[in-house]
């Protein structure tokens, strides 16, 4: 889905979200609540500039609108794969974005995420996966890495990985698999504004994804192992 359609459906009462290149920024109204909207479009590759631009928007929200909920709209092809971005410390710029989200959370901002097209790896880790609650549109896909790079790193044939991506929930990129594993709260269809309103009210205060993953049967070990690491 295009970002224009997503924002229209999330904020039927009006929004001021604009695209500045691949960066989405602005606000939207949902019921009585104004949301800060931050995101990416056009399957953005997130390099140092875009990561810092998103972090700047989080900081601006914290400074000028204390307590305002933030929603990340995610459509990314992952981190920019260029030597120059590595040279400049893209890992740190992504971490900075993640830390800004954490500080926002600690200061009472609810943070939500919505994958509306695709999400890969680094770009997703620093945005949607830092949210209190992340949702996805039914057709969206979430991947760790492109198959050809995965094939090279794991020294497995591309065909074998493609077959696994078709048959195994652990490998399949459809967002439904992330729902079962607890990382995506739900697939949102129909009245997106209603979903958004419910999400901001119900989002958990701590990271409950592993408990959800266990309850849904998609990720059975993370919760019990983390508990044992905590108490044994």
């Amino acid at each position: 889905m295009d970002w224009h359609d997503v924002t229209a459906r999330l904020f039927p009462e009006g929004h001021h979200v604009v695209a500045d290149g691949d960066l989405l920024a602005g606000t939207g109204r949902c019921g009585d609540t104004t949301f800060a909207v931050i995101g990416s479009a056009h399957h953005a590759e997130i390099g140092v500039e875009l990561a810092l631009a998103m972090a700047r928007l989080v900081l601006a929200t914290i400074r000028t609108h204390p307590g305002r909920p933030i929603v990340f709209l995610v459509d990314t092809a992952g981190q920019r794969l260029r030597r120059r971005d590595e040279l400049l410390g893209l890992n740190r710029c992504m971490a900075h974005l993640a830390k800004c989200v954490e500080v926002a959370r600690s200061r009472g901002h609810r943070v939500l995420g919505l994958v509306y097209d695709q999400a890969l790896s680094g770009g997703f880790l620093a945005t949607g996966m830092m949210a209190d609650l992340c949702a996805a549109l039914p057709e969206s896909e979430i991947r760790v890495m492109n198959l050809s790079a995965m094939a090279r790193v794991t020294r497995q044939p591309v065909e074998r990985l493609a077959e696994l991506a078709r048959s195994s929930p652990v490998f399949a990129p459809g967002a439904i698999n992330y729902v079962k594993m607890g990382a995506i709260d739900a697939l949102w269809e129909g009245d997106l504004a209603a979903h958004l309103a419910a999400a901001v009210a119900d989002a958990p205060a701590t990271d409950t994804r592993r408990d959800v993953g266990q309850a849904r049967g998609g990720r059975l070990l993370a919760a019990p192992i983390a508990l044992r690491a905590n108490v044994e």
Partner: protein
Amino acid sequence: MQSYYEANARERLDGLLDPGTFREILPPVARTLSPHLQALDLPAAFDDGIVIGTAKLEGLAVLVAAQEGGFMGGAVGEVQGAKITGLLERARNAEVAGIVLLLETGGVRLQEANAGLIAVSEVIRAICATRVAGIPVIAAIGGQYGCFGGMGIAAACCTGIVMSEEGRLGLSGPEVIETAHGVEEFDSRDRALVWRTVGGKHRFLLGDCDVLVDDRIDAFRRAIAQALREGDRLDLDAVEREHALLQRRVDRFGGYDDGADIWRDLGFPDPENVPLLATDALVAISQRLRAA
């Protein structure tokens, strides 16, 4: 003097921690093997490639986690991630000076794909939440596999990073970049180029690691203890300062193509000599340049 690079995870802990103080949590007898690897008919490890526990380090009570780079390149799967996440959460209820993460990892364990990505995300969330609670998390990077992928993000979320010259820290590994954009973009077999881009010396000169130490376990120990004593606060002031720093960096160095260009800009008259400098010499010059 024991090499950090050559040592495996358990040997590093042995050399780092005060003798007799280490108690392993979920030791190998707990048999926390990865079901995903077993499903793929791949060899698994009893501890899933990470050793966690409680200990003292120079008298400071700590929680420690040491990744075993030799197993799956240190990559993080469901079980390993849960061990780290649980440990980070444990710190909030324990009287500890902080958490020490000995990182050696390619990032998400691709053989566990979705479960691995979520595991790394939970680690990142837990590091951030633990730091907001005021508990320092110190990362050490100096092994053969470096620290890449989502764990490169995790490392940069920590309070401080101690690296040796041998260490590497980044997001996408050179091989991944080469696969995407070709050898002209990044020749992953050009070791000097790799180290100018993501190696310990470059990261130190750029400011992405706080301390550069020799490849010796005792040097890591001293630096980690010192970092723990400096305490921590992840708050609005900290991220605003970080933002200004990173923005200045991109403005100042964003047009450069190579680490050597950045080092020249920082004031090194002969940047091609940087790789040859001993650690203490490099640190001394860097401090003089920063003071100037």
